């Protein structure tokens, strides 16, 4: 079947089997491999993208269902060399370790901040509950999203909270 959609501002089309998952179309046909597959069952959230502005797990949607849609993946998050605030936040506040969940996490975070400019810590934790991370314990992911929220509001982000005061090194 023929599908056509706008991905990261670019018109794309392709011929797919009806059963082709959207995430596989994005990764295999478009070769946009920033969107990851962690479970294929919509639990882990590594494949989260934006479809018509809403965060969607792209392993739980067929490519044909996205026909005509406007899609944004992690590759479309930055504006040229200018990182999106959530990307900057994750870099500045060590919001990633292995990086595998990160693209999905960034897309969920960006979607949250589009809806709620000043989320509380609880609201952030709730908003990313569909995105599993095994490395960070989420502590620095929360701080990264808080950083991004501050930047988007035009405010100075809170300083990092990692422990700097240590002893014994002269």
């Amino acid at each position, binding site marked *: 079947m023929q599908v056509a959609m706008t991905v990261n501002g670019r018109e794309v089309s392709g011929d797919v089997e009806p*059963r*082709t998952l959207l995430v596989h179309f994005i990764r295999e046909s478009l*070769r*946009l*491999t*920033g*969107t*990851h*597959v*962690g*479970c*294929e*069952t919509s*639990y*882990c959230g*590594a494949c989260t993208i934006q479809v018509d502005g809403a965060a969607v797990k792209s392993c739980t949607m067929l490519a044909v269902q996205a026909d005509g849609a406007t899609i944004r993946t*992690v*590759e479309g*998050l*930055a504006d040229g060399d200018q*990182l999106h605030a959530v*990307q900057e936040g*994750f*870099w*500045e506040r*060590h919001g*990633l*370790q*292995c*990086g*595998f*969940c*990160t*693209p999905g996490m*960034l897309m969920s975070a960006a979607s949250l901040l589009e809806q709620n400019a000043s989320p509380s*810590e609880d609201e952030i*934790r*709730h908003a990313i*509950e*569909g*995105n*599993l*991370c*095994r*490395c*960070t*314990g*989420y*502590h*620095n*992911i*929360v701080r990264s999203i808080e950083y991004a929220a501050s930047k988007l509001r035009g405010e100075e982000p809170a300083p*990092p909270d*990692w*422990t*700097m*005061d*240590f002893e*014994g*090194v002269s």
Partner: protein
Amino acid sequence: MTTSISAMGGIVRRKEDPALITGQGKYVDDIRLNGEAVTAFVRSPFAHARINSIDTSAAAAMPGVVAVYTIDDVRHLGPVLAQVPVGVMRPLLADGAVHHAGEAVAMVVAENSYVARDAAEAVLVDYEPLPAVVDMKAAAAGATKVHEGSESNVLVTWFSHDWWPGVFELVDHRPAIAEAKERDDVVVVSQEMTNQRLIPTAIEPRAVLADWNHGYNRVNLWSSTQMPHALAGAVAKTFGLPSNEVHVVAPEVGGGFGAKLNIYPDEILTVFASKALGRPVRWTETRREAAFSTIQGRGWVATATITGTKDGKILGYELDGIADMGAYSQNFTAAIPVLGLFVAQGQYDIPLAWQVSCVQTNTQTTDAYRGAGRPEAAYYIERIIDMYAAAIDMDPADVRRKNFFKKEDFPATTAIGLTMDSGDYEKNLDTLIADVDYAGLRAMQAAARAEGRYVGIGLSTYVEVCGFAPSVLAEFGFGWDAYGMPTSFSGSGLVRVNPDGSATVIIGTGPSGQGHQTTWAQVVSDRLGIDYDSVRVTHGNTAESPTGVGTFGSRSAAVDGAATYEAAEKVGKKAAEIVAHMLEASADDIRFADGGAHVAGSPGHKVTWAEIAEVAYKPHKGPEGMEAGLEAHAVFSPGNATWPFGSHLAVVEVDPDTGNVEIQRYVGIDDCGNRINPMIVDGQIHGGIAQGIGQAMFEDAIYDDEGNLLSGSLIDYPIPAAGDLPAFELGWTNTPTDVNPMGVKGIGEAGTIGSAQTIVNAVVDALAPLGVKHIDMPLRPRRVWDAIQKARG
């Protein structure tokens, strides 16, 4: 001659991140080769069955199917190689029988993954079910055998007093402890506890891509592995190649936690298929499949016993347990409990009598999962010490302090003959007690109890052991001999200053999120004064790097980092001679800083690294007779492991009506020596704590009596989500180690080793007014609620 080590400890943004936050990181499944075929496995629905026949004809006839393989095609390659080959080794595909549910029976190779999976469904296997044994105790009793015809399901029993016969002469503490139990002034506290089986669950499923080049008769292999050189050796040994003809690349690896520290059948089978078919062959694990194709961890049941005086002096600690190996042994399976034995007595100078039997069951293999034996060991001693404290009505902090190894005991010899490098446990615990205002917390708890609330405070200390050493441990199995790569667990690093003055650092480890590019660049930048942004670190590539051991056991910084440090020192020594020649000064007076070198005391008298490099690569400009070029390789073989430690505390509140546990605070004071990048160290501890809380609260690999895994998906096996965890509060002590020149100890597993029992201790403390003494993990609401109901009678 170089800037002080104290220049480290700096926060720099990670070199890895710009690619990873923009979707440019390349994991194995992101790499595509022209003409590649894709595999899928046929997996057994039975935990134990004879295979009467396998009919692959329908699958093989499907359009798009390239080949279907069974054991008959690959038996000649032998079983999967293992570092510690104790037990029954896993065949590449089931050979006549299956021994756990999900065991791979046949491999389909097809043009794409959709076709491969369809064809796997079309392979017909005639199984004749056999009795399975799943429960560890039943397996140890041995009525039903995991492998037909075997004499016993017990592979080995590890005893603390003779864990390595002939090497250590150790005291058997059992008679003395038995004698102590007869005394009138002692209490004996004993409890059986389960440390349940876990599924490691790195978010990146494992993936492998093999490309056999018949022209060169060599293989290129991309794998999401933690040990690229060991894999190269294993593939070479299996296929009769020298190891340098197997080029393994571990690109971005999406979390490992020990689960990617194995040679896996799929790695060997994709190489086999690529060789047979003359085209690249890929396999990517599905999440559901991961529960069968990747090792699991923990899975112990043991009785811990403390014999001690009524005023808190421990006279003996005993552990008698069983550890579940699963059906086959893989990399380190039967030796995992030995890692627990290394830290069995925790921070306490106490007599130890420990025995753990390794038992096979008809389940997936267990092996190293973050902490690997050490979280289990810490759990048992720290739980039973809390029960002992409760029995003698003494504060758990005071009981711990009373039995600590003292600062002046270090280097301290443990009951099993190992030497712990450094420790100041009292200071570490005191730091925690002061930071959290422990007395204030207890007062808060008393007030809450007066209101009828169930607030608990849990405490745990721990000892970790990182960077396994000395070299002689290779003879026990701490080496890659079995993979055709005889080596101890040394570290390696190569530092090269390029002609333009930039530096390339090549390390033998293969990280999976630990930020090695950043950390190693800091080390080299610090030693040589080369700008951090001008240092490139490459890793996980066996064709480029010196032989490396891999990333596990919290070893990379303390061993490979130290090797890189020493390689940088060597480069610095040669560069100092070049600079001395350029500036007409003495080499002893040359200092490296700020992108170049200068003469001590006259910072204006300087040259840049680009200028130094040019002279290094144009020998006619340099000191007479000096070899051109500027690079050095170092291998660091530490004389001992490092022994980090810490103290953790949790505050929880239990809702008695629902059994729900709310973690209100989690505080960790860890001591990993010097920290190269505190930001990264914090991150390691955060993740480690999260995995320990995952075990304490949520995770459980549950098999039914017939060996079906009931919790193999992320909905049945809930790893912690953001809303399940609190923000973490961390602090530090720093007790120096002289095991390596940087004074670093390692931090990868510490958080996991310290945390599970901290939570359980807190929950049991919360429910103490009801008389609850113990609840087995995971502390899901139903289990806690049941314990409350039982206590209330």
